[in-house]
């Protein structure tokens, strides 16, 4: 196994594009090292992107945030502004693993590891985040929901990797929330995860919304029907009920030790109601 630590994006793309056999990008390594250790993968090449300075930074861009692919959870938590603008994204990212894992894990890694239950992914999808993909042919911007294509699989082509994730500028009175259900209070994998991002007007009517569900299908889902049920409402019971039904209807989960199909389907609706309420209160400045 070869280890490379290029210092520029171009060099990283070149090394990855020219590699034979199995290559993996190393950011935090909290999934990669576990997979290598368990023998799930045996890469011929590991490209460490942490020595590329721009990937270690959170930068302001067009009123939004660009989060480098090597920014850890602990680093993003310490950012003075990000969590105030995107509390739902930050709370989702912070749910990943322990303090030790937070010291290393990255959102780009969570996205590209392509676990259906990845916590930060529904929150990023709800946020309308855009991944910047760098590869041998230059760069392209891709909505985050288009990156995972199934458990452990992505749409990235040979030599490509995610260099950063962009969170666009938000209209006033917007906020987001992420909730996940796990059988214990910490250190577990989502049975269901729900990200809700919404904007309200002065009167408290929801004018825009995005909803995403995790752990209930092979990839995290965008659920436009649930968003549609929220838009135009003040989160009255009727709207919540419709949105919850839409969330449950979108689920295509599996049975496993953490939950049955019926259970996950029901809980998705319940979690959506709660996450929508949190996002709504935040958007109205009610915390």
């Amino acid at each position, binding site marked *: 196994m070869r*280890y490379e630590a290029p210092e520029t994006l171009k060099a990283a793309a070149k090394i990855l594009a020219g590699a034979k056999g199995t290559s993996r990008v*190393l950011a935090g390594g909290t999934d990669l*090292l576990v997979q290598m250790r368990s023998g799930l993968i045996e890469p011929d090449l590991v490209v460490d992107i942490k020595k590329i300075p721009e990937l270690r930074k959170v930068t302001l861009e067009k009123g939004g945030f660009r989060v480098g692919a090597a920014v850890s959870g602990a680093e993003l938590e310490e950012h003075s502004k990000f969590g105030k603008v995107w509390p739902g994204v930050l709370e989702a990212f912070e749910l990943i693993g322990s*303090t*030790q894992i937070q010291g290393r894990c990255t959102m780009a890694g969570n996205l590209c590891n392509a676990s259906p239950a990845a916590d930060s992914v529904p929150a990023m999808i709800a946020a309308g985040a855009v991944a910047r993909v760098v590869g041998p042919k230059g760069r392209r911007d891709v909505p985050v929901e288009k990156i995972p294509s199934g458990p452990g699989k992505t749409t990235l082509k040979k030599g490509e990797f995610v260099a950063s994730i962009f969170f666009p500028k938000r209209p006033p009175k917007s906020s987001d929330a992420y909730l996940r259900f796990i059988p214990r209070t910490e*250190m577990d994998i989502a049975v269901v995860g729900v990200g809700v991002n919404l904007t309200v007007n002065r009167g408290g009517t929801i004018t825009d919304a995005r909803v995403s569900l995790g752990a209930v299908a092979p990839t995290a889902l965008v659920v436009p029907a649930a968003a549609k049920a929220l838009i135009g409402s003040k989160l009255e019971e009727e709207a919540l009920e419709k949105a919850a039904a839409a969330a449950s209807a979108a689920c295509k989960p599996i049975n496993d030790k953490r939950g049955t199909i019926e259970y996950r389907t029901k809980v998705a609706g319940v979690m959506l109601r709660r996450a929508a309420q949190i996002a709504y209160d935040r958007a109205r400045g009610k915390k």
Partner: protein
Amino acid sequence: MAKHHVSVTLNGDEVEYLCDTQQTLLDVLRDELGLTGSKEGCASGDCGACSVMVDDRLVCSCLVMGAELDGAKVDTIEGMADGDHLHPLQKKFLEEAALQCGICTPGFLIAAKALLEKNAKPTETEVRYWLAGNLCRCTGYDKIIHAVMDVAKEMRK
């Protein structure tokens, strides 16, 4: 394949080592440098027994490659006491019997020290969440949590 030549600042000393790509920081510490205070529990980032600081960040050394650390600052349990003078956390763990078999203890101490450096006045809930990535199968956690809370209180005096 040639080994990687890596220079780090380890517990304040300049240290160089050679390692294979496959070796984790934990492998390097234990097998190459003879620092066996950091323990291997799960080797998958769940138990925290291998907790160390890398560039002042709490991490699981089993999830860090040895090869990636050139120029890094690494602090382990071996650097916690000042000669014969135990760190207040170490003293308190002994006084309050916040350990039984001891396998998890170095990880708990490193993690607790990182917490107190960041937050001098943690609530019990904050301590419990911060240490959720450190597993202990003997104590039931209460003594550990109380020891950390007591040290925090004393260090504020």
